[in-house]
């Protein structure tokens, strides 16, 4: 017992020495947490690390992912819809933690050196904007998730680093400009204002008079003596303890302390009205509060010069405060200006957050977004894409989940208990990753917590370096100057991201083109992903709540024949997508629905198989484009149907935007042609329904109901 204690003490004592020669030592040192208190030094240090790094891994923790259940990305979402949903998420939720982990290849120790940083970020409003407040959404389940992993909300809110995006900064500077211009304009109109303002209250008049005397006395003292000793301002001190003579830019000045804003206003008024050579100005005091001063000037010209100077000073101070409000964006600017390879894990949403928080409002299309991202981050690699697309790596992953922690466990950690079965993997050489925290270096560092942004970034970087190693990339020539992202084995995976993992669409950041995973691997590609013909899809909402996808499919089979629809996808309990097998069925359905809705008391429509779906009489149907419109809205109602209603979506009675030639045929053949088959269908379907036992009950019921009505 005592021995082990001794050993531990010794290791502790030896650590600094050993870390110099980077010998392994188990460490329980926490990763670098950065809050606003230590942001400046941490940033300076990070600058150095990023400059030397071969790649930088990032990871973000947010207050939520989706603002409503239907805002989740579904497999039937077209790429433009997916982008809209990502955009909505990045716009509404806040980033609370930002992990940055630069990795540098150390040739001497043939290992990577990682510097995991964990930044607490909070969108605190540091500069007064146009009066609107900073707001962000929290998804309850996401907060619960963060709480489960012991996220420290207090640190985040109290100590989190605030930030200003590029566009916010521009806006603030522009606003400052316009105020400045206005003030210059105001100088001319000032005099009129002064004469306009009247003293109404008795107390005001008395106070103004007293101030006039006091200031006059002080001025007279100045003019008489040239030097004003205590005897000359004695009377002034008697009148008011709140005056204090100082200098302002080599001019004698009177500092006014501890008065109310009303009193200050009166002093300003008196000064400007009665003393042409005195200027009333506010200057920045030592404690950054604005200190009111009455300054003696030689002439009216000198007074204007002084006023101009003060204005410029104030402007400069305001600019400085805007600059200092940039905060965490310095880190993003650093990553962008160093043009290093950025590594993320499934990081499209992360990038959207980075863009919307630190650069500007997200563009309206994915193409514009990715081309803008490319200008800031020219090379990005996604480990999830890498693991799923490369044959070698997806073979290693062996169809197990490519979640970050799973990939890290599989690739980067030595097998826990090397039993006989996996003897091979035990001696597979691995990339060594040392961790350096505050000049201490550890080779077996593993004391981070999962879902902590800094540690997740570290894991992402480890997975990436290991993946590169398995791809056969030799790190050794990574001498200073050679660039990892130009390695030909890696190049084909750079700047490809999953637009969303749910439907496996990959977006090419260079071209903005988006499509299913085509990067190479046959094993990794997910074959089960369904294909969609969006023009054959109909969106239904305000459905009866108890209706399941299975029921909807059944109804459509009965109405249009089996095989008429290829799939039914439920979005939430109020809305669903139906995909028809043929395009013309879309317009057929819309017309049939329209007719059934119009005479819903007709027994024929009551027994119609679709009546089960349409029985409430308020079901709406529309094409895929309507879905896009709904997604475009900034609103996020909990249920899709409510959202569509609030947007005033009425659905479509017939297909308007379908191709012209089909429309022409329809209209040519006239109404009768269209009614007949559907009528036949009605009869057929009612006949087929009567053969079913359980169905009869229901239809009889509804018939009775309609008769009663």
């Amino acid at each position: 017992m005592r021995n082990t204690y001794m050993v531990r003490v010794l290791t502790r004592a030896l650590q600094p020495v050993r870390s110099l020669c980077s010998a392994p030592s188990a460490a329980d040192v926490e990763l670098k947490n950065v809050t606003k208190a230590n942001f400046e030094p941490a940033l300076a240090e990070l600058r150095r690390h990023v400059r030397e790094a071969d790649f930088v891994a990032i990871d973000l923790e947010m207050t939520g992912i989706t603002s409503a259940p239907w805002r989740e990305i579904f497999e039937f979402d077209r790429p433009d819809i997916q982008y809209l949903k990502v955009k909505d998420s990045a716009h509404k939720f806040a980033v609370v933690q930002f992990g940055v982990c630069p990795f540098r290849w150390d040739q001497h120790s043939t290992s990577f050196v990682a510097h995991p940083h964990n930044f607490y970020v909070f969108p605190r409003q540091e500069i007064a904007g146009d009066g609107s407040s900073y707001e962000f959404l929290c998804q309850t389940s996401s907060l619960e998730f963060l709480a489960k992993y012991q996220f420290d909300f207090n640190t985040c809110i109290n100590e989190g680093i605030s930030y200003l995006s590029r566009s916010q900064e521009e806006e603030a500077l522009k606003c400052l400009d316009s105020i400045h211009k206005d003030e210059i304009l105001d100088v001319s109109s000032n005099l009129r204002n002064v004469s306009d303002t009247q003293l109404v209250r008795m107390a005001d008049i008395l106070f103004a008079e007293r101030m006039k005397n006091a200031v006059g006395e002080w001025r007279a003292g100045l003019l008489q003596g040239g030097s004003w000793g205590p005897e000359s301002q004695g009377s002034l001190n008697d009148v008011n303890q709140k005056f204090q003579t100082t200098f302002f830019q080599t001019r004698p000045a009177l500092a006014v302390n501890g008065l109310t804003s009303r009193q200050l206003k009166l002093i300003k008024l008196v000064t400007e009205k009665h003393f042409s050579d005195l200027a009333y100005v506010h200057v920045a005091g030592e404690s950054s509060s604005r200190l009111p001063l009455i300054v003696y000037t030689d002439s009216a010209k000198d007074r204007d010069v002084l006023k101009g100077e003060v204005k410029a000073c104030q402007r400069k101070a305001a600019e400085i405060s805007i600059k200092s409000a940039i905060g965490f964006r310095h880190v993003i600017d650093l990553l962008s200006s160093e043009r290093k390879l950025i590594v993320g894990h499934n990081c499209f949403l992360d990038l959207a957050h980075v863009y919307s928080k630190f650069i500007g409002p997200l563009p309206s299309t994915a193409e514009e977004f990715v081309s803008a991202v490319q200008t800031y981050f020219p090379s990005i690699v996604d480990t999830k894409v890498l693991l799923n697309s490369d044959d070698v790596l997806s073979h290693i992953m062996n169809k197990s989940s490519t979640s970050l922690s799973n990939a890290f466990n599989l690739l980067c950690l030595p097998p826990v208990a090397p039993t006989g079965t996996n003897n091979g993997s035990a001696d597979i050489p691995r990339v060594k990753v040392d961790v350096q925290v505050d000049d201490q270096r550890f080779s077996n560092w593993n004391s981070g917590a999962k879902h902590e942004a800094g540690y997740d970034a570290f894991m992402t970087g480890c997975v990436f370096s290991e993946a590169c190693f398995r791809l056969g990339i030799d790190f050794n020539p990574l001498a200073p100057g050679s660039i990892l992202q130009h390695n030909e084995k890696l190049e084909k995976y750079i700047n490809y991201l999953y637009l969303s993992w749910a439907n496996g669409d990959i977006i090419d950041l260079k071209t903005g083109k988006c499509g299913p995973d085509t990067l190479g691997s046959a094993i990794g590609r997910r074959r089960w992903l369904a294909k969609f013909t969006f023009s054959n899809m109909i969106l239904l909402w305000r459905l009866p709540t108890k209706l399941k996808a299975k029921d909807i499919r059944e109804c459509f089979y009965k109405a249009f024949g089996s095989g008429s629809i290829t799939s039914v996808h439920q979005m939430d309990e109020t809305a669903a997508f139906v995909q028809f097998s043929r395009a013309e069925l879309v317009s057929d359905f819309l017309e049939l629905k329209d007719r059934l809705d119009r005479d819903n008391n007709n027994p024929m429509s009551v027994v119609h198989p679709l009546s089960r779906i349409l029985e409430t009489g308020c079901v709406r149907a529309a094409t895929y484009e309507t879905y896009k419109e709904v997604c475009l809205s900034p609103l996020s109602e909990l249920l899709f149907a409510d959202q569509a209603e609030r947007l005033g979506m009425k659905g479509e009675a017939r297909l308007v935007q379908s191709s012209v030639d089909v429309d022409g045929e329809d209209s040519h053949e006239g109404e009768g042609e269209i009614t007949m088959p559907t009528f036949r269908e009605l009869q057929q379907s009612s006949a087929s329904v009567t053969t079913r036992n359980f169905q009869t009950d229901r239809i009889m019921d509804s018939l009775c109901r309609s008769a009663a009505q």
Partner: protein
Amino acid sequence: MYFRRYLCSQTAAAHRRRYLRPVKQVVKSNFSETLAEIKESIVSSDFVAVSLQKTGSYSAPWQKCLPIDTDETAYWKAKRAAERFQILQFSVCPFSVKASKLIANPYNFQLFPRHEVKAGMPSYGFLCQSSCLASMAQEGFDFNACIYNGISYMSRAQESAATVQTRSVLLNGGGLLSTSALSVADVIFSERIKTRVKNWMNGCNNQHKTGDYLISSLRKLVERSENYGSRPSLTIDVCSERQVQLTSEALKEFVNIVLVRPLAKAGVEAVQVVLTSSEEDKNLLVKEIQGLEEEHRRLVSGFREVIDLISTSQRPVVVHNSLNDFAFIHEKFLAPLPPTTNEFSSSLLSVFPHILDVNHLMKELGLFDEMNNLSSAISYLDSRFSASIDMEVSYEEKTDCVDVHGHSVMKVCQLFVKLCSILKISLEIPEGGHTQLPALLQCSSNMLCSSDVRDPCNDDVRIWTSKSRTVSLRNLVFLWGFRRGMSAQDLKDVLCNSHDVFSEEFDVKMVDRTCAIVVFWTPGVSKSFLGIMDSGECFSNKLENMILEGLKAADYETYRRVCKSDLWKPNLAECLAQATDETVVFSGAKMQQEKSVICRNNDEMINLDEL
């Protein structure tokens, strides 16, 4: 005189102690024990003060409840906030006044809308205002405690929607079976269940006779016989809701058994048959299970239990800002807010019959100043009036940690009692007289959204009218599109000489940086001004220039429509512009309808002094 001085010194002492006054902190772990405690203290006190800590209040200056708001628009603003933001802390303080002594029992509940029972309930997500969180943090609010250990809840509406899904534990004999004929399989299933239960019951009854431990335990194993508490039970696997019904139908003939559905499992998997020894024993078991159900229900409703307790006690509820607070309470604990003020107040008053607004009392006292800050209001009253109260807090902090949270509710209490003593309203309610409020309070209760807030019904009218001037909504015009950074005075100066319509008396007030409101004191002028703005024919160069520079105007109805719509922007000007664009598209019928609405609003007056 001596007496008064004595009281004053007492208050001074109380002042010093104020920040150390203990408030019981309630989180998830001590919630159920506190529930019984707070129930007792609510019943034993005469009033209940509540105070809420929210994640935000309003997103932009114009979205705050302004003096220019009618009850309707004020309600919409409160509604919007209540729908978006979240309550993180709810302080409740049942109190009474006995012998000019305030007896208070403050509790502070940490709330978090955790998904305890069902995903997405009580709230899928909520909005946070970062400045609001930052100031809460500054006051020492513990967000970790709140998010890790806050009490969850479900509104009445959510619960009634959710009970459809959480079925009751107890299965009361069949009857639910549809009239359709039983299939052969059904009959076989029923018979099998019957014989199985019969055998099992026989086995149970004979158990003590055989005495062989091995045999009895083997029997148990074969029959899947278990114990439900101390009673023997049998588990029957079922695979559908229909089979559950069949089982309960088939077992109707057995008198001494109770059918129970295991709670935790989702979907239909099994039914437990519990054997009881007698009719009394059966009743006992049923009661026991109902108790468990109650416990589960309590977990579901969570903090709402407290709201229900306050509601059932029928005690008058004292708040500082009734409209906002009760909009939150209604939205989070009762049901989604209805679209109109009338529906809201009737729905609310059916739950809380007596609502007393401290702000309203302040107005009755003639304090028109925006006294939003509780502490400043208290110190103001302290300096103006010599009314003082002694305070006694019955909760004694047992632990040594002194918490600073939830003191605002004490301040609400204090302010209320102080105001009542100044207004000479006796708060001492005789034993058993809870149904009747003191007459003077009666008249000021429930003023949260009835329009007579602006026209109080007692003697204070004189002060009121002397300090304020009211204006009809018809005489208000919203103006935007002027140069950025202009003040109300600037705007008035510019407008003054621009056109004849401004030759009569008028006033200008800023609503936010982008939008101002013009008050025409002469009726009818507003209309002609709007007409000029519409047509653009103003015969005045100055005004024409301003119109060319983008000056726009709209009537109150447009503002009303903005408040009613969903798409609120940070700048009022943008919203108004959007709303006027929409009107152009509207058909004539719609315009007609809106005109009638304007007529309805005509008699609503606004207190301009608050502008």
